[in-house]
């Protein structure tokens, strides 16, 4: 992904999770995700867990953290165990994480994306020029990978009102959670688990 420049007054920026567009941040709470039947508190937790497919205990430690920031900090301590092709797959993995976040939190997340209109979305940072952009004079400079992925979601799904109930797993090797292949992720409420019928119609002949 190339580096881009934005003029601050012409874009939607986000940084604090408490601000108007805070829900765009991976650090925002209130957007939990369910993958393989496991509840994951945020897209940041999921992204960080995907970094260590061969280390299920580390994935568990990340996922058990309440806060996305703490999950990221835990991950940071173990970067030496990062999957070897991480630099080649990390943007794909983030796109997939965001698609799952949108699918399973459609009402809330699509509303925020819609509210950004057609403006560029830029994550503001003081130093991260890959995922975000850094203010330099009156410009914001950086790859802004997260903002660009969010714009993709906005254009491909939200503006077209194309709700994706199920998201396919990424076709990359070792796409694992707790040693199990990550399966198709569907937005469901597991109500079948609760259909525990004792009514007469459930009687087998």
């Amino acid at each position, binding site marked *: 992904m190339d580096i881009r420049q934005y003029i601050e007054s012409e874009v939607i920026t986000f940084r604090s999770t408490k601000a108007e567009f805070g829900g765009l941040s991976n650090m925002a709470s209130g957007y939990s995700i369910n993958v393989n039947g496991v509840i994951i508190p945020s897209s940041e937790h999921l992204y960080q867990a995907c970094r260590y497919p061969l280390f299920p205990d580390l994935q568990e430690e990340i996922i058990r953290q309440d806060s996305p920031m703490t999950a990221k900090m835990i991950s940071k301590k173990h970067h030496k165990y990062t999957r070897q092709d991480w630099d080649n797959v990390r943007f794909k993995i983030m796109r997939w994480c965001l698609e799952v976040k949108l699918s399973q939190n459609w009402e809330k997340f699509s509303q925020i994306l819609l509210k950004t209109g057609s403006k560029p979305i830029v994550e503001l940072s003081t130093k991260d020029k890959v995922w975000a952009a850094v203010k330099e004079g009156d410009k914001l400079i950086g790859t802004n990978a997260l903002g660009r992925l969010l714009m993709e979601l906005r254009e491909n799904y939200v503006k077209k009102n194309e709700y994706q109930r199920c998201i396919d797993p990424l076709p990359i090797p070792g796409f694992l959670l707790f040693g199990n292949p990550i399966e198709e992720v569907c937005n469901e409420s597991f109500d*079948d688990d609760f259909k525990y019928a*004792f009514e007469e119609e459930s009687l087998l002949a």
Partner: protein
Amino acid sequence: MQKLAADILAIIGDYQNDLDVHLTNQSIIDWANQFENADREFILSEFLHLLNQGIYVSKLRAKSLLLARIEEIRTHYKYASSIQFLKETVFLDLQNPNKSQKEILTLIDEILQNNYSLKLSDCGKSTKRNFIYFDDSVNTGRTLFTHLKTWLSQESNGISNLTSVSNNSVRLIVSTFCYHTWSWENIKWRLKKELNNDEITKRLDLFFDYAIENHPRFNNQKMNFAYPIENQPSLVKTFLHQLHDGAIYNEDKAYRPASKPLKETFYSTPENRNRFESIILNEGINILSKVKKKYLQHRPLGDVSPSYKTFGTGTLFFTWRNISNTCPLVFWWNVNSGWRGLFPLQNRGAR
């Protein structure tokens, strides 16, 4: 056999004594004698090993666990005084008469009077900060989910309980002797979906004494239940194949992967796990084959959602007052098949 039966009786002997049920050495041996000759002693021996892992809660142990639980919750929420904690606590009473919650609340009332000179009815009279839902075991989670959803949808002083829990002005706590990790995850997720509220997945606090780690895709689960591997006689595969048309989910999870659990900590050995699970699975299929009227949820290893194409929940956990229908049939099935379950039951399986 006599010694094994006596050792087992020493653990489960108070089962349903309140209902005038009295297990004996002979009733345990009679149960074992229904298995193939070569398996009888093994079944008792392995079952005794499992009982020694704490899978039976007697009434006496229940009282001790409940008292410890009150103190555990008090400490967790940093109350300096037990009395203050209890005065701010409501013990939810949502289940029907004759259900486990009523009986647990009766025990708690006794515990409160003996240890704190308080009655249950004195609790939560003024400030209502903690709402505790007690139950003996969370199995499918159907009852718990229904009650929590209903309670969260209700209002107090014009504010919904869901709002109060979400903004942390009150706490919603579930306390149980035993829960299944898979159903707990599903309960939380379904509450989020049906109440359209993400906070509930974090705000619902669980306190428990024993976890049945049965989540098929969570990390490093103990698999401390009955979950057979695929290497089974053909009648087992035929049974699964011939389940009713509505059984469409989770067929890929019907058999335990032979590599799991990573380390055996529940059964006496991995080999004995395979043997025990296979015996009770095959006997369960035999039982069901003799029953004319079956319900969609019946499976050889215990009831499960009718939509599951699996052999059953396989719960191995029992209390003095009940055996769950999610336990393998060999432990509780008593009608229309000639089989007598170890734990006698009225009105189960006959419908």
